[in-house]
């Protein structure tokens, strides 16, 4: 049985932490997960296990500086220790306001002095907890209900103050049936897939997983946000002779995962690729699967971060308002779109907004976190990382679909290569976003209205921007691609001309 705790349990932990912080400006994030993953290879299960954890992340702000401490232990003693660590770290952070090399000098601890030598040996010092208060750490001892009028929520030049209470739109991506998910059902489904695959003279490797998650954020300024979600995933690689077929599926809802359809697709693709076909280096019309396109464009969208653009550290610097992609391409970041999944708030509890990133090929907007929004006087988009994601970036991509099914798009093409999945995709030139990678498994060759066979070890090298400029069509059918803990991409099948195979 898979289950995560309810909000009341998190509230209790948060309340305890706020009490221990004694009026300090504290934010608490709880991430709980309960799930299992079954992996199979060579037609048998080789790895199977539950993964369950609760991670508690505490962030304290004082005088515009912040520090973060994370633990997996929700006990009062652990929370008390975290709060003490935060005070000490903040004190250190204030010390670092001095010019380099003139950091606040404190009494050398016995342990720190032992064995200390040279330049870094001089650094072996420890601060006392009471020094935190001496240095003006937060509003020490003041009750939460009566914050000081100045520095009201700990904010300052470097770190915005804690948010106040916010309201959120709902995202419905929780299936109560997750509770009944168990590895026995998973083994049964895998056994069924393996039986069919063996019958077809093939072998398979893949995974089946079910996970439920609960994220809760609260702060001492009255903000409280929570979201519970479920995720069902199934994917496999089928091998038949020289043919390799890949297919995968994700849904927040059990009934929407059609495992039979997925393994049949993988098997069918392996069968279609059995006959080896040679393709010379050159430019080809290709159809990217939704997965391949989500993987291919991932480094590009990571650059749609307002801070990176302002720092000239993004390809999109100087490109806002310019048409650099195909007119067919319209992309938004929208967690509320039907079929999307994720949190309706960001890492500090700011409500996630829908952001139009690309409109008919024109670069329109970037996402920001709260500090960037304040620094650049922009409307906040609610994409700050906090402890929930590695950095500020679009996390819920929705690409506008076309009107025809991908099978119909294919019928209209004389010659095309289908790309199911890509592998080791890397940007090799940050200035042009030139990227290279390989097609994973077999790419399928379509000619004269039929699949001709498969090609393997296909390497491409092309600018991500050029590829998106060369989109000539997108399908009406879309798939949700979710590889990270939160968020995902909703992509159609995408037809690109002049794709460069090397």
């Amino acid at each position, binding site marked *: 049985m898979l289950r995560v705790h309810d909000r009341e349990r998190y509230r209790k932990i948060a309340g305890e932490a706020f009490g221990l912080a004694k009026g300090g400006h504290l934010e608490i994030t709880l991430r709980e997960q309960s799930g299992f993953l079954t992996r199979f290879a060579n037609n048998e299960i080789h790895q199977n296990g539950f993964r*369950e954890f609760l991670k508690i992340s505490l962030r304290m702000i004082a005088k515009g500086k912040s520090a973060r401490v994370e633990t997996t232990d929700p006990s009062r003693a652990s929370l008390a220790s975290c709060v003490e660590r935060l005070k000490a770290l903040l004190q*250190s952070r204030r010390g670092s306001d001095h010019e380099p090399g003139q*950091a606040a000098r404190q009494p050398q601890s016995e342990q720190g002095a032992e064995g200390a030598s040279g330049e870094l040996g001089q650094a072996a*010092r420890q601060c006392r907890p009471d020094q935190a208060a001496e240095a003006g750490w937060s509003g020490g001892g003041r009750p939460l209900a009566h914050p000081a009028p100045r520095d009201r929520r700990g904010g300052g030049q470097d770190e915005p103050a804690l948010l106040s209470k916010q309201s959120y739109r709902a995202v419905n991506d929780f299936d109560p049936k997750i509770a009944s998910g168990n590895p026995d059902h998973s083994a049964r489904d895998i056994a069924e897939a393996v039986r069919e695959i063996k019958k077809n003279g093939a072998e398979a490797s893949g*995974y089946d997983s079910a996970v439920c998650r609960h994220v809760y954020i609260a702060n001492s300024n009255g903000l409280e946000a929570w979201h519970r979600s479920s995720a069902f995933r199934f994917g496999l690689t089928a091998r038949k002779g020289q043919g390799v077929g890949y297919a995968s599926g994700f849904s927040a809802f059990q009934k929407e995962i059609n495992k039979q359809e997925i393994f049949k697709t993988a098997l069918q693709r392996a069968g279609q690729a059995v006959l080896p076909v040679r393709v010379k280096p050159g430019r080809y019309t290709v159809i990217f699967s939704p997965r391949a396109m989500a993987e291919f464009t991932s480094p590009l969208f990571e650059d749609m971060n307002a801070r990176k653009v302002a720092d000239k550290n993004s390809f999109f610097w100087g490109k806002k308002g310019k048409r650099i992609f195909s007119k067919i391409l319209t992309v938004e970041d929208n967690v509320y779109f039907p079929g999307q999944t994720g949190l309706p708030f960001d890492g500090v509890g700011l409500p996630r907004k829908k952001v139009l990133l690309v409109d008919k090929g024109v670069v329109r907007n970037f996402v920001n976190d709260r500090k960037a929004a304040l620094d650049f006087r922009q409307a906040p988009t609610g994409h700050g990382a906090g402890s929930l994601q590695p950095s500020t970036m679009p996390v819920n991509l929705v690409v506008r679909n076309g009107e025809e099914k991908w099978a119909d798009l294919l019928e209209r093409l004389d010659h095309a290569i289908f790309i199911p999945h890509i*592998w080791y995709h890397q940007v090799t030139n940050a200035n042009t976003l030139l990227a290279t990678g390989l097609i994973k498994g077999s790419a399928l060759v379509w000619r004269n209205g039929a699949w001709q066979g498969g090609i393997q070890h296909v*390497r491409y090298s092309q600018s991500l921007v050029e590829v998106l400029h060369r989109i000539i069509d997108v399908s009406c059918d879309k798939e949700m691609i979710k590889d990270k803990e939160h968020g995902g991409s909703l992509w159609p099948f995408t037809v690109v001309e002049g794709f460069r195979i090397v």
Partner: protein
Amino acid sequence: MSHEKILFVLDLLQFKKVFYGDARFVHIKQRIVSAKNGHPSVLEEKESLGLGVRALKNNGWGFGCTADLSTRGLERAVSRALETASASAKVRVFPTELSHEAPIQTSWKTPVRIDPWQVDPAEQVAYLLECEKRLRSAKGIILTDSRMEFVKKFQIFGSTQGSLIESLKSLAGGGLSCKAINGHELQKRSYPNPSYDYRCGGYEVISDLKLKEESFRIRDEALLLLKSRPCPEGKRDLILRDSILALQIHESLGHAAELDRVYGHEDNFGGRTFLKPAMLDREKIGSRQVTLVANRPEDKSGAGFAAYDDEGVPARETRVVKEGLFTGYLSSRETAARSGLPRASGSMVAEDWSHFPLIRMTNLSLLPGNRPVEAIVSEVREGILLDTESSWSIDEERGDFQIGAEIAWHVKNGKIAGAYKNPLYRGNSTRFWKQCSEVADAANYRITGFPDCGKGGPMQQAFVSHGCSPALFRGVECYASGS
């Protein structure tokens, strides 16, 4: 956490008549300090503790974990492991056997001179700010980044076969980078690596890394790249410095030597391997200069080092390649037994208590040669010397690859004659390693530690390390990104 709790879990597993079971209590402490663009950026401490249980019953593997170390929590973790083992047993083909290991009761820990937790983080921030100040001390540098990180991993491992091993592994690492801009062109230099460099040890590792000392060089090289020509296309002699050779070892031979890839365990994610069992002790995959050793006893400072792995197997010195001949895999007890190998290599590592252990590289090093790097470079008439990885892409069997570096130095008649930007080289693993004509001597030997080797599902990160001296490869296809 007392040993009694581990013994309690092992008793439960034995009571449930498992063929084999093990339990790992893991307590990880981490401190991350970073600065960005001349200001303090991250100041963070993380702590994670819990227990992971593995059970092998009726030929099926299962795993459970918990952060609740009460009797109830431990019982639940065991029951989760048994539940998944029972499910696995329903879809098994091959009988599971484990290679022999004598039970062992011992403890080990990393020698640490300065405990990083006894150092005021203000001093650590100040050190980084000084690095940043140096990086930013020239016009044209627009972005800077610096970081140090410390990890302590305390673990008690116990198995139903009688092993009980207590360990305390300490790691420290750091690095810096800067970006220079001219119009719309951006160039980056990092030191020691873009993902930083980690070693076993305490705060003393940071001074050994010489971040401050290298800041000016990194700054100047980023600016130099803006004025440099793209790396010319063509076959030429290639000298890889240790910083990028470590990546070459990692991607083209390290992952390829993982025995679980032979059995397709990573087929759906990380791929398979070109190193087929039939090649073992028969096929040359490199020149005579190439000898690659896992768990080399001299490399205990490498970030991947652990005296015992996460199934209680000692870090066994394993020759993966001996003078060019493929001679060994990195293995688990299960895959070693299945392949008929007498012993596992001691390569099973889990990211933390909540993950299933997998075959990982730990320490994998290229043995040094006999001559100093200067002597080798002096004999190159026309070549390039590459420093610091920037991109890597390799096929599913770890054969064909393309690797990029941050900077290329033009070597002409044995001397450095200028810099090239955006260099890339490509090749095929066996062909490439056969092109290795010389490895520099032990005086140039350095162990690079990566913190972010990703593998498996759920994706696990591991610290791995590679010792090597710079090496010369003849007639390698080189070009520039975008050419």
